[in-house]
């Protein structure tokens, strides 16, 4: 008999806990501006677009590197010519 009482008490306390949980854990509506902000973040360019942009940057980097190398070659040749010409004049 005591055991049955204990069981029914336990059942009641668990039911009370379930009601408390139902009252505490309820669905909340996210703020509207938050949902809108998130949607805007979702409209970020996709991976392919980002990859193609990255490809463009790489191409740009190669072009820039090529131009700089060309300039360095021209400067070196100019310096060499200047050096030889100056040497010839001193002789």
């Amino acid at each position, binding site marked *: 008999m005591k055991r049955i009482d204990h069981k029914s008490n336990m059942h009641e306390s668990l039911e009370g*806990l379930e009601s408390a*949980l*139902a*009252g*505490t854990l309820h669905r*909340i509506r996210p703020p509207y501006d938050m949902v809108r*902000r*998130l949607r805007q973040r979702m409209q970020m360019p996709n991976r392919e677009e980002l990859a193609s942009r990255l490809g463009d940057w790489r191409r740009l980097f190669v072009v820039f590197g090529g131009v700089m190398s060309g300039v360095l070659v021209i400067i070196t040749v100019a310096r060499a010519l200047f050096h030889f010409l100056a040497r010839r004049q001193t002789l």
Partner: protein
Amino acid sequence: MPDAEFTEEEVLARASGGDREAFGLLYERYVERIFNYVYYRTGNLHDAEDLTARVFQRAMNHIHKYTDRGVPFSAWLYRIAHNLVANWHRDRGRRQEIPLNDVPVLPSKGDHPEKNLVRTQEEGALLKLIRKLPPERQNLLILKFVENLSNAEIGQTLGRSEGAVKSLYHRTLLALRDQLGDQNISLDAD
């Protein structure tokens, strides 16, 4: 792309094929659920927003890998959310708890507005205890009470059988009841 025109499978197929509009529909359908899950796991509105965004960004980047194995799409999203929340807790080094007077008041569905404004001490204490539970038990309670999912649906999401969910739920209730008793907190069910 009107929402009602397409079934979940069709929308998923389109989204997997890179259709951004279709992914937008999935976002509209699941953003509230994922936000709720993340919010209750972090207890922080700002982090919930950030993590929800990251869940959908990750989903968008990996949607082409998604395959329908008979498990709902929401389970896949919850898995992503679960991993991100776990990383978040690891990065913070400790479990985030909502201070009793720091629970943001957000409108909930179905309740009287006045009820939303009043968070009783018991509710705060209960939330604290819930957040101290192991992650899987927290997931279970959130899916059961916030999402109103059945044990079978929770099982699909958590990758467990219906019986295992039922048993885990019972053990969770007992653990919570014991902890409430230890802290002399009584709950008045209304």
